């Protein structure tokens, strides 16, 4: 449903709120019939929802509220107004597709169908097995339950019961013991194969310009939770309409790659008559599907320039304010003026993925949020290797999955087999606090609750001094603290305390 959006002053909004229902004179005539409108008081967010009962052509009337004094075109009969939770303009599908609201615009609010995902469901037979196990107090994982289903049918009941009992027993045998140092084991299990990893970055599948960091540098990057990985890249899956259509894929790539003016044109500075000439390179512009119109519309946003001369493949520009410094500055700014494409994505290539049997786009540079909103992109599968970006767009649980997936891929790519549980433990620890934390001084180790453990790790004096000033108490519950004071550590058999309860009478 299309609605009207406009920017207004807080004063006008107050006036409308006071005198609802009222008639409001505006300087814009909406083309379609409208019953809902939104008002924005700053340029980026919508704050008020307005119900409109009628739109009339402007004529002087009693009890009118005026948006402005001149150029009035229509009267809106407002039946109600209410404050809503802030909605950014970007959530409206506007005809003009702009980011800032200046006066009036027609747009459609995106309707997202929010549903809880229900991917996990057991077959009725599997549920029965799970219930059988639970009634006997066995804790059997879902992956095994699915395998046990066929035995329930083929075996007599008493044997099936025995089988369940045996499965439970074997599982219990393999459980990790209480007070086992799982963290140390995980650290060593990942650390040792790490010594065999390469230190190089690799070219991506024969494309020279595209590098992907792999091996040890990548693993360090993952556990350090870097804000920006050294080679961010995206894997873009496409919707059904696009994935087999080579032409559409090529077009999509051209719309993904960030193109600036310098990519398709030369900028010539003439100091003599203080002018800049943008000379378009025919071949390059054809290759990137950039037309003259695209460049002109990109330049439109720039202020302080006057068009001197425009012909077929060059644009001559003069400055409003003539100075050499400005001329130089404008030249530099023009070079990096974006014409089209998604910000941060410098290169995109498409390949036919054998497993998918369809086109998949790989990019250098990553901008998840914007790419997901592009038509033709499968927003349910497209991902990036930037963990922090995944955290921001999809949340902490997705970041946990991303850490696991990236670490697993990096290790297995080098032919190293690390038990999945170690990597899962690292991923769980890194995301425990609700945000991705690095392993190390800035993250997990630096935020341990024990003073002595922190002091033993790094920057001893700082931690001890701070603890002294604040009067921190160390309950000596961990490993490092107990080694420092010379006590048995609280692991394995050392975890057991003897408590004397005294005589019972």
């Amino acid at each position, binding site marked *: 449903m299309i609605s009207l959006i406009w920017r207004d002053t807080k004063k006008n909004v107050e006036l409308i709120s006071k005198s609802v229902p009222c008639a409001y004179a505006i300087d814009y005539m909406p083309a379609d019939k409208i019953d809902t409108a939104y008002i924005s008081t700053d340029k980026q967010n919508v704050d008020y929802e307005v119900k409109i009962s009628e739109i009339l052509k402007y004529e002087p009337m009693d009890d009118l509220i005026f948006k402005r004094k001149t150029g009035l075109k229509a009267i809106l009969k407002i039946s109600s107004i209410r404050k809503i939770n802030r909605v950014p303009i970007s959530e409206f599908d506007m005809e003009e597709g702009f980011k800032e609201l200046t006066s009036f615009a027609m747009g459609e609010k995106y309707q997202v169908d929010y549903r809880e995902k229900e991917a996990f469901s057991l077959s009725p037979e599997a549920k029965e097995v799970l219930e059988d196990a639970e009634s006997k107090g066995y804790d059997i994982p*879902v992956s095994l339950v699915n395998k046990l289903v066929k035995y329930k049918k083929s075996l007599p009941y008493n044997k099936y019961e025995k089988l369940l009992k045996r499965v439970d027993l074997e599982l219990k045998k393999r459980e990790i013991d209480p007070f086992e140092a799982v963290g140390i084991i995980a650290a060593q299990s990942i650390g040792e194969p790490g010594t065999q990893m390469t230190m190089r970055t690799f070219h991506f599948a024969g494309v020279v310009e595209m590098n992907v960091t792999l091996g040890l540098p990548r693993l360090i990057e993952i556990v350090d939770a870097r804000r920006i990985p050294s080679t961010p890249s995206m894997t873009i899956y496409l919707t059904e309409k696009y994935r087999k259509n080579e032409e559409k894929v090529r077009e999509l790539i051209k719309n993904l790659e960030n193109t600036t003016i310098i990519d398709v044109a030369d900028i010539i500075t003439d100091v003599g008559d203080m002018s800049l000439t943008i000379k378009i390179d025919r071949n390059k512009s054809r290759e990137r599907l950039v037309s003259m119109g695209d460049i002109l519309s990109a330049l439109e946003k720039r202020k302080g320039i006057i068009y001197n001369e425009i012909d077929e493949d060059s644009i001559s520009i003069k400055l409003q304010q003539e100075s050499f410094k400005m001329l130089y500055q404008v030249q530099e700014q023009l070079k990096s003026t974006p014409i089209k494409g998604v910000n941060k994505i410098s290169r995109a290539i498409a390949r036919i993925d054998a497993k998918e049997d369809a086109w998949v786009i790989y990019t250098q540079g990553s901008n998840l949020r914007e790419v997901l909103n592009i038509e033709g992109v499968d927003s349910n599968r497209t991902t990036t290797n930037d963990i922090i970006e995944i955290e921001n767009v999809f949340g902490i649980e997705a970041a946990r*999955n991303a850490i696991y997936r990236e670490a697993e891929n990096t290790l297995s790519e080098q032919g190293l087999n690390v038990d999945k549980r170690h990597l899962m433990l690292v991923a769980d620890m890194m995301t425990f606090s609700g945000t991705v934390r690095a392993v190390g001084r800035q993250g997990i180790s630096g935020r341990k609750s024990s003073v002595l453990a922190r002091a033993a790790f790094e920057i001893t004096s700082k931690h001890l001094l701070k603890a002294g000033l604040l009067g921190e108490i160390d309950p000596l519950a961990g490993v490092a603290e107990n080694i420092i004071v010379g006590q048995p550590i609280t692991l394995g058999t050392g975890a057991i305390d003897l408590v004397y309860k005294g005589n019972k009478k």
Partner: protein
Amino acid sequence: MSKFNVLEHEIVPEHHLVPVEEEESVLTKLNVTKDDLPKIGINDPTIKALEEIHGKLVPGRIVKIIRKSPTAGYYEYYRIIVKSVM
């Protein structure tokens, strides 16, 4: 926020809000207090999406996450909604 539903993405596991009445039994099952649970920020995109379904959520509510695991098939994980994460 945008056109897509984060809960539908394959990298996002299932998130379900635990009803207030069931919170107690969850905590007894895990033998923990609310403070011991892993945290999830109220501004997390998945919580924002859950708010679209369940209405405004307050810190202190528990979210059940059904994770896909390469070893156990599926398993449950719980996070508590907190005001801010750091």
